[in-house]
C-alpha cells in the first residue's frame, strides 16, 4: 500500500516539475509546480463537447484508462512492506493492464472518425507493440537475477552487493527510462508540444476530448509516468538502505526509503524534462528501429546475466 500512496503523492508534483524544467531550459520562468493539477480541476468544471460520430466507447475509454492505471499502481512494490496484493507473475498483469487501457484508448481515437486520430492511434499501437518485448526481457533479467517472480520479491531480493548487481541495476534503469519515455509518448518518439496533426502520436488521440473526459485522460497520463518512476525508485532504494547499514531501526529505514522514493521521482521528472528539451525527435520512420534496438540491448544484458548466474563467467 505504501508504494501506491507514495505514487499518488509524487504524482502531485511530477508533471509540474517536468514542465518547470522544460521552461527553465528554454529560458523562461515557467508555471508553478501544481499548475497541471489546477488545469485538470479547471477541466472538471467545464462542460464537454462530444462528437456526434462517437459511441459508448468514446465515453467508456477515459474511465477504463484511468482505472487500469490506478489498479496497476496497486501493484507498486515498496521494500519492507509485505505486499498483500502482489503475487507471482504480477508484472505480467501490470503490462497487460496498461495494454487494456491502451486498447480502449486506441478504439476511442478511431471512434471519432477522424483520420488524424486514426494516424496517431495506428502509431501508438505499433510502438507499444514493439515496446512489450523490451519490457518482458527486462523482467526476464530481473527474474533470472533474483530468482523470484513477483515484483515485491524481485526488488527486495536484489541488493547492490556485487558489481554485477550494480550492472543489472544500471541496465534496468536505462531500459526503464527509455520504455517510460516511449510508453508515455515523450521524446524521442513523440513530442507532446507539437500540434501538427501529421506528427503527433499521443496528443492527436485526445484531440477531440474535452471537459471531464480530458481531465481523466490527463490524470491517467500523469499517473502512468509516475508508475515508471516508482519502478525505477525500487532499484535505488535497496542501495540506499545498504548505505545506511543494517543497524538502523526499521522506522529509520522506512523513512529513508520514503525520502529516496520521492527524491528519485523528482530526479526522474527533471531528467525527463531535460531529455525533452535537449533531444531532437526521431523521424517517424526510424522509430520502430529505435524501439527494437532497446530490445536487442536488453537481450544482450540478459545473456550476460544468464552466463553470470550459471557461473560460466566470474
Amino acid at each position: 500500500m505504501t508504494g501506491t500512496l507514495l505514487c499518488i503523492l509524487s504524482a502531485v508534483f511530477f508533471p509540474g516539475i517536468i514542465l518547470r524544467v522544460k521552461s527553465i531550459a528554454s529560458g523562461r520562468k515557467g508555471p508553478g509546480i501544481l499548475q497541471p493539477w489546477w488545469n485538470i480541476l479547471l477541466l472538471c468544471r467545464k462542460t464537454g463537447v462530444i462528437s456526434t460520430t462517437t459511441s459508448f466507447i468514446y465515453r467508456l475509454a477515459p474511465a477504463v484508462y484511468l482505472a487500469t492505471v490506478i489498479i496497476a499502481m496497486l501493484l507498486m512494490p515498496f521494500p519492507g512492506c509485505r505486499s498483500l496484493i502482489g503475487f507471482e507473475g504480477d508484472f505480467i498483469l501490470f503490462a497487460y493492464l496498461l495494454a487494456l487501457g491502451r486498447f480502449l484508448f486506441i478504439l476511442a481515437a478511431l471512434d471519432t472518425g477522424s483520420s488524424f486520430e486514426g494516424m496517431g492511434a495506428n502509431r501508438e499501437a505499433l510502438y507499444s507493440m514493439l515496446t512489450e518485448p523490451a519490457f518482458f526481457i527486462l523482467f526476464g533479467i530481473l527474474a533470472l537475477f533474483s530468482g523470484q517472480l513477483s515484483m515485491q520479491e524481485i526488488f527486495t531480493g536484489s541488493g547492490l552487493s556485487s558489481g554485477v548487481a550494480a550492472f543489472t541495476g544500471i541496465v534496468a534503469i536505462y531500459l526503464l527510462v527509455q520504455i517510460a519515455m516511449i510508453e508515455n509518448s515523450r521524446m524521442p518518439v513523440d513530442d507532446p508540444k507539437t500540434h501538427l496533426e501529421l506528427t503527433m502520436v499521443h496528443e492527436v488521440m485526445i484531440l477531440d476530448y474535452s471537459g471531464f473526459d480530458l481531465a481523466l485522460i490527463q490524470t491517467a497520463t500523469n499517473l502512468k509516468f509516475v508508475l515508471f518512476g516508482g519502478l525505477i525508485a525500487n532499484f535505488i532504494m535497496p542501495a540506499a538502505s545498504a548505505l545506511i547499514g543494517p543497524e538502523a531501526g526499521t522506522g529509520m529505514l522506512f523513512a529513508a526509503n520514503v525520502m529516496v522514493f520521492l527524491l528519485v521521482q523528482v530526479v526522474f521528472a527533471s531528467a525527463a524534462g531535460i531529455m525533452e528539451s535537449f533531444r531532437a525527435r526521431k523521424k517517424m520512420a526510424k522509430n520502430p528501429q529505435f524501439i527494437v534496438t532497446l530490445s536487442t540491448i536488453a537481450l544482450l544484458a540478459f545473456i550476460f546475466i544468464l552466463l553470470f548466474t550459471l557461473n560460466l563467467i566470474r
Partner: protein
Amino acid sequence: MTNMLIIVFAVSLIYLSVTERFRIYAGLVGFQGVLLFGISFLQLDRITLATVIFVATETLIFKVVVVPYLLFAVIRRTGVVRVHEKALPSFYSLLFVTVGLLLSIVVSFSMNTTPYNLMFFIVSFFAVYTGLFLIISHRKIFSHLVGFLVIENAVLLLSIAIGSDIPMLLNIGILLDIFVSVLILGIFVMRLRQHTEDLTILKDD
C-alpha cells in the same frame, strides 16, 4: 570490470549496425579502440608485462588516434555530409544482428573455453559477424573499410583473451592495424579526389 567493457563493446556493435552517418562510424571505431585499450590493460595478470605495454600502446596510438583521424580526414576531404544509403533498411540489419548475437552464443557455447572468459569469445564472434554484415549490406567502400576495422577489433579482442598462450596472435593482430592504417593513408587520403560526395573517384580519373 573487464566484462562491463566487453558488454559496452557489444552495445557499440549494435549501434554500429543501425547508424547511418559516417561521422558516427568513425567515432564508434575510435570508441571501440578506447575500450580495447582498457580491456588489454585489465588483462595484465594473464600476459607478460612487456607484451601488455606493447599492445596497450599500439592500441592507443593506432586505434584511438591514427585510424579515427584518418577516417575523419577522408570524410572532410570528400565532403560527405549526407546520410548514406544502405542496401538493407536499418530495421532488418538490427534483426540480422540479433540473430548474429544468438548464433555467436550457440557457437561459443559449443566450444570448450574453460580457462578463458566466455564473454570474450561470444563478443568477438559477434563482432566478426557484425563486421561481415556491415561489409555485405552496405554499398560505399567507406563502410566496407569500417566493417574491416570491426573485424580487426574482433581479432584483437580474441587474441587478448588467449594471449597468454599464443603471444604470436597478438602480434598478428597488431600487424593488421598497421596494415589498415597504411591502407587508409595510402589509398584514401592521398589518392581520392577532394570534395566529391562519392568515395570511389580517384584523383587521376
